[in-house]
């Protein structure tokens, strides 16, 4: 059981304060269990707010999945790697456009890296959209989460919906406006044996979208 970096605790406390986040566990309880949390992505605050809502025992063993091309160099790399213990993935490797051998190998490597990070008892936080969206609804899911679920069918996949964080710290802005936000954890799901990729991704996406509060 590894210790949490003190900067992580500070950043998490600040993020909680700025975002005034109201956390609701609808479909499950905050247990110290190995899980893959998947969430919608609209702001840099997403990971920190989600991470800070997890029980303390889980936090030290929960890794964000970060895009290597963005989180490299100097402060960013330090924050991602040393402070929050991210697992890096190559975003381009996931691409379905290229059908070359090298791209398949790279995609396999991504899944292997994620698997290794999961290990026996660690958890992951994934943003299946692959990039920050505008905040209106959930974008299409990349296939990484499907391959990961296929490899680890016994691990619970917990949807987590984040609301309003894109208004607090939008893409491209440096300073946050302190508004109120919401985080809702839903029912855990698992991949069905021999479930097709498109079906699974659609099911996961629906599970996430259904957590959005009605009328807001």
């Amino acid at each position, binding site marked *: 059981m590894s210790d949490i970096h003190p900067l992580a605790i500070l950043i998490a406390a600040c993020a909680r304060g700025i975002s*005034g986040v*109201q956390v609701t566990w609808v479909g499950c309880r905050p247990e110290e269990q190995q899980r893959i949390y998947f969430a919608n992505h609209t702001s840099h605050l997403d990971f920190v707010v989600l991470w800070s809502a997890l029980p303390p025992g889980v936090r030290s063993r929960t890794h964000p999945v970060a895009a290597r091309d963005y989180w490299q160099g100097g402060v960013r790399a330090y924050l991602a790697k040393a402070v929050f213990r991210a697992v890096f993935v190559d975003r381009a490797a996931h691409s379905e456009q290229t059908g070359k051998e090298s791209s398949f190998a790279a995609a396999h490597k991504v899944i292997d890296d994620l698997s290794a990070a999961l290990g026996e008892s660690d958890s992951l936080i994934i943003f299946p959209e692959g990039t920050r969206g505008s905040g209106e609804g959930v974008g299409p899911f990349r296939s990484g989460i499907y391959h990961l679920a296929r490899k680890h069918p016994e691990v619970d996949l917990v949807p987590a919906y984040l609301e*309003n964080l894109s*208004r607090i710290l*939008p893409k491209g*802005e440096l*300073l946050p*406006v*302190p*508004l*109120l936000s919401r985080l809702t954890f839903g029912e855990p799901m698992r991949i069905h044996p021999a479930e097709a990729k498109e079906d699974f991704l659609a099911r996961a996406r629906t599970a996430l979208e259904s957590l959005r509060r009605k*009328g*807001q």
Partner: protein
Amino acid sequence: MLSPNLIVRLRNPQLLWLFGGILGLLVIASVTGALLGRILRGDAARATIDNLNSRIRAWWIMSAIFALTMVVGQVGSLFLFALMSLLALREYITLTPTHRADHRTLLWTFFVVTPVQYYLIGIGWYGLFAILIPVAVFVLIPTHIALRGDTEHFLERAAEIQFGIMICVYCLSYAPALLMLKIPGFEGKSPQLLLFVVLIAQMSDVLKYTWGKLIGRHKIVPGVSPNKTWEGFVGGVLSATAIGAALWRFTPFGPWPAAGLSLVIALLGAAGGLVMSAIKRDAHVKDFGSLIEGHGGMLDRIDSICFAAPVFFHIVRYYYVP
């Protein structure tokens, strides 16, 4: 300009009596509420008692904070109210549909306009603090938004942000601004004025609620707020006026002016509550945020003060400050 020293403040017998009286009432209320909470059965009665008990809890917190500001003086009060403004603004802006393009404007609102407004009160610059937001900020906000280029719902966004700053910052700031009024014969006692306004506003709130529960029958605006009744309104306003009149010795006014000002506070408090209810209804929310336990949010607690404080300030300043 700045507050008198601590010893003088704490030796002020009137303030201690008033505050002591309030604490005594709170103790009685808490005990009564706790007892009734155990005895009463039935959903309606339980709901009423729960509401009253959560109000009492919030009043204990407010009293503790007020006592703290008595110790730290005017500067402390300004910090406290500035914080309340920011929390209220946070709830308000969360509800209003602002665009990505309004982000920088909102940053200015939270981190520049609010501290500057309270700073101006602190240094006693009445001329600027009274016009900064309604004049300068009023023209600058739409200009800043227009410069960002997003004109979709332009007028709504500009108007909503300005309205929010007016209610959450400008109007609320008039409460600690009472501490800067120099009333002859009342030197060093201005905390009592602030306590008077907050007390009468809160009392008229809870008395309207109580009278409404006891004898309320005819709803005022069922579409906006189903709990407001004419009987509750009249009962609450009249009893709050009576209480304010009875407390005239703690104010620089005679009994009749004290009654008149209490009436103004109670009426405006009702107006503030009504307007915030209408805003909430429009946004399909029951309560703003969840900041003060059991109560709804900061805006729910200060809506009556926001409307009452500015008018009270100006009336007192016009008649009692030479």
